[in-house]
């Protein structure tokens, strides 16, 4: 349900469904994202994603024209897959539909079955498909639907039981993923992180141009998921009918623990508790120490941020996570907004702030920046927390914007920004305090050298 009183959308606070799917497919080793639709979609999304990650982002397209829109896109889909096989040597093709192909009624599962039959003599890649019409949901539905499709279509058999944890991290940065991998390694368990864009979207400089970036979840690790100790699925908002973790639980009895994106102490505690539960091991001292330092920093910094009024906006999972963090450091989330419509958004915001705020923060879903701005006039925020598309408003209201999540198009290093677990929260807290201090210093005529 949208909380916007308007019919039109102005400066949307969401992206379209296939973008999320394309980005998720990029997190599988040897995979190429493939959009079944007209050429423009792939190009726009590439540009949008490249501007954040500053990495190559090849998205193939079936490039439908007028004829195909009338007679069906099947031949182009098949030809396109053959082309990415031969030129990219892709071992996985992640096919996501678009509004065009959904509306003309292309039956992608049937077309792919035909393709496998027609070209059965060739060494075929794994082809995973997901339905992502952009008139339904946002990029987060696309992301989660693609992850669910990877699990449900690639994991076919019950694997040998092993000391392995499945982690579905949600849309977090490559730096976040590296941090999560370290944590899992320090717990001493094997892990399948699905998807894993830590390498593929933050590559080192290399000797040659990579057709497909190295890194990403391997097919073997994906298939091993059915034999894992359990799954941890990050992100509190409901997105798809059956998530990857729920699917593995239903089919293979792999225990699924659903938690939030671990930002802040309480949500990070839940993450470490989940790891302890699945592995039967205590949290390594290193992370207990990180937690201790974070608490110490909260203590040292609390007065700088106390009572600051923040508007949080963006993807529903991240808005919930950031609100959990802000509420526990004494910042007042005065409006939590998302462009998505999401049936448990408000309930989850209430849950993560319970005991921290006198009442749940005001939450609005299905809104755009026009709605947010209209309300902000009465709210007098001190601070905005979200991706870089809120900058126009931060400038207009003369309040600082703390950039988090995706996309960061007006600053450098968005892909290396950390948000998660105690370590990521530490960086967020330091940044937040400094945003407040910098503003205080700039606004003061005194020129304080100590703050």
């Amino acid at each position, binding site marked *: 349900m949208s909380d916007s009183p308007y019919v039109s959308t102005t400066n949307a606070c969401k992206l379209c469904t296939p973008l999320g799917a394309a980005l998720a497919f990029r997190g599988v080793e040897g995979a190429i994202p493939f959009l079944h639709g007209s050429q423009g979609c792939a190009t726009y999304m590439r540009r949008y994603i490249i501007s954040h990650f500053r990495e*190559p982002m090849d998205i193939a*397209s079936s490039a439908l024209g007028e004829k195909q829109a009338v007679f069906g896109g099947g031949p182009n889909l098949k030809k396109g897959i053959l082309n990415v096989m031969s030129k990219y040597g892709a071992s996985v093709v992640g096919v996501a539909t678009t509004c065009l192909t959904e509306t003309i009624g292309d039956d992608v599962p049937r077309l792919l079955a035909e393709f496998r039959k027609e070209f059965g003599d060739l060494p075929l890649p794994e082809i995973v498909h997901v339905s992502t019409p952009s008139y339904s949901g946002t990029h987060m539905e696309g992301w989660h639907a693609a992850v669910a499709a990877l699990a449900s279509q690639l994991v076919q058999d019950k694997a040998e039981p092993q000391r392995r944890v499945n982690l579905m991290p949600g849309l977090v940065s490559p730096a976040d993923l590296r941090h999560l991998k370290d944590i899992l390694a320090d717990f001493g368990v094997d892990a399948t992180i699905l998807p894993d864009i830590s390498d593929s979207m933050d590559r080192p400089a290399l000797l040659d141009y990579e057709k497909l970036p190295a890194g990403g979840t391997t097919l073997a690790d994906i298939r091993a998921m059915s034999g894992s100790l359990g799954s941890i699925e990050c992100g509190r908002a409901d997105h798809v009918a059956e998530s990857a973790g729920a699917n593995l639980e239903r089919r293979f009895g792999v225990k699924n623990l659903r938690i939030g994106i671990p930002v802040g102490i309480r949500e990070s505690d839940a993450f470490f508790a989940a790891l302890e539960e699945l592995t039967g091991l205590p949290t390594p001292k290193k992370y207990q120490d990180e937690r201790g330092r974070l608490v110490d920093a909260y203590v040292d910094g609390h007065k700088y941020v106390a009572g600051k009024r923040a508007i949080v906006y963006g993807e529903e999972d991240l808005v919930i996570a950031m609100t959990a963090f802000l509420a526990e450091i004494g910042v007042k989330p005065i409006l939590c907004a998302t462009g998505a419509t999401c049936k448990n958004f408000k309930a989850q915001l209430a849950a993560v702030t319970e005991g921290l705020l006198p009442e749940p923060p005001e939450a609005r879903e299905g809104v755009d920046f026009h709605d947010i701005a209209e309300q902000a006039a009465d709210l007098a925020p001190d601070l905005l927390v979200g991706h870089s598309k809120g900058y126009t408003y931060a400038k207009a209201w003369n309040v600082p914007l703390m950039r988090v999540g995706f996309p960061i198009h007006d600053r450098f290093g968005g892909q290396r920004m950390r948000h998660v677990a105690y370590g990521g929260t530490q960086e967020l807290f330091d940044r937040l305090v400094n945003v407040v201090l910098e503003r205080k210093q700039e606004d003061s005529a005194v020129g304080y050298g100590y703050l």
Partner: protein
Amino acid sequence: MEQAIFEERRDQIHRTGEGPFELACNRDSLAGAVSQRACVFCGSRVVLYPIADALHLVHGPIGCAVYTWDIRGALSSGPELHRLSFSTDLQEKDVIFGGEKKLKAALLELIERHKPKAAFVYATCIVGIIGDDVAAVCRDVAEKTGIPVIPVQSEGFKGNKREGYTAACKAMFTLTGTGDISDISPISINILGDFNLAGEIWIIRDYFKRMGVETVANITGDGRVDDIRRAHGAALNVVQCSGATMELAKMMQEKYGIPFIRASYLGIEDMADSLYAVAEHFKDRDPGIMERAQQVVREELSVLLPQLGQYRKDLEGKKVAIYVGGAFKAFSLIKAFRHLGMKVVLVGSQTGTKEDYEELAAICDPGTVIVDDSNPLELSKFVKELDVDLFVGGVKERPIAHKLGVGFCDHNHERKEALEGFVGMLNFAREVHASATSPIWRFVPRREAMAKAEAAKKEAI
């Protein structure tokens, strides 16, 4: 290496000096080839976008609007309505039951809120499929609100950017001929095909003003609806970026008898030639105009040339790859690079025509590779093979260059540096110089390996 090229695309690549010139172009992009092209909607959107006091409503699902929000650095000296992103954000039920009602309600709501001078309504892929009668809704809303509400038939799948340019020109053409032209000077022009990126059209208008030429309408950089309504009162259309607005010039010639000339404001010769061509056109009516044009060029060059020389010193002999949207820009870039002593070894475009490519082949040095509708695999192959030092392109080409340890100059519509005019040539040189001569390249593994190989070779001798 040859593996990077698709069999079906071999005839879209040509090496000058190797056999008679023939290049296939203007084809649909190859499925699965990761074309750098966008779509019809993109073409319309980028051309009309800078009209700053119009409402630009994208009728479709959210993606089309959100990826084009404030996409160009097209500046306005007044209203900035164009920088907002409006959409009908079609949902599943709209797709099933039709989006006309929602479109009408959205238009009425936004026109009431923003009081625009006109509204453009962009049809996207899905609107073409579900069959909304966008034109009828536009007529209805125009009647109710009293402003022009103009449908732009830009369904994404109906071609590439060029069809989008056509749709944009048709939309603008409906505005011309509706304003009062009684006070327009006989020495007057419309500037077509400049989008005021980083304030470029202000630079160009200033040159024309110093020549005594009145600019009636900017089409479309820093554009205004009322100016376009009066555009038929100008004596001459000066058309840059031929692909985007040439059709409008042709329609205006046919209907109003306004002649047009082609121009380019990039690089020294093309900038000067453009001013001279306009002076030439008006010299009978204004005998002093050529003198004044020469004066402008002289003044500007006396500032530019000494500074340019410093950059040339370091850039002499370096090799350049150019991959841009329209081929016309490539002509000017090739000439501009000659001023910097640099050699263009690869040049291509997303949507060039046969004539464009023939002209390109004629001005390129032998051995230059010319490509149409290329893709990352091909471009990276050629960058390595031709040992390129600097790549000129847009956001999607940048990581190709950077990953290969090659300097990059952003010459796309997202740029924030003015590259047009004489002052723009200096900015261009500065940017090229800053990237091509940076000390960081030595650390990039490919360049490091090349340097090592070079050193080993020297030692062997």
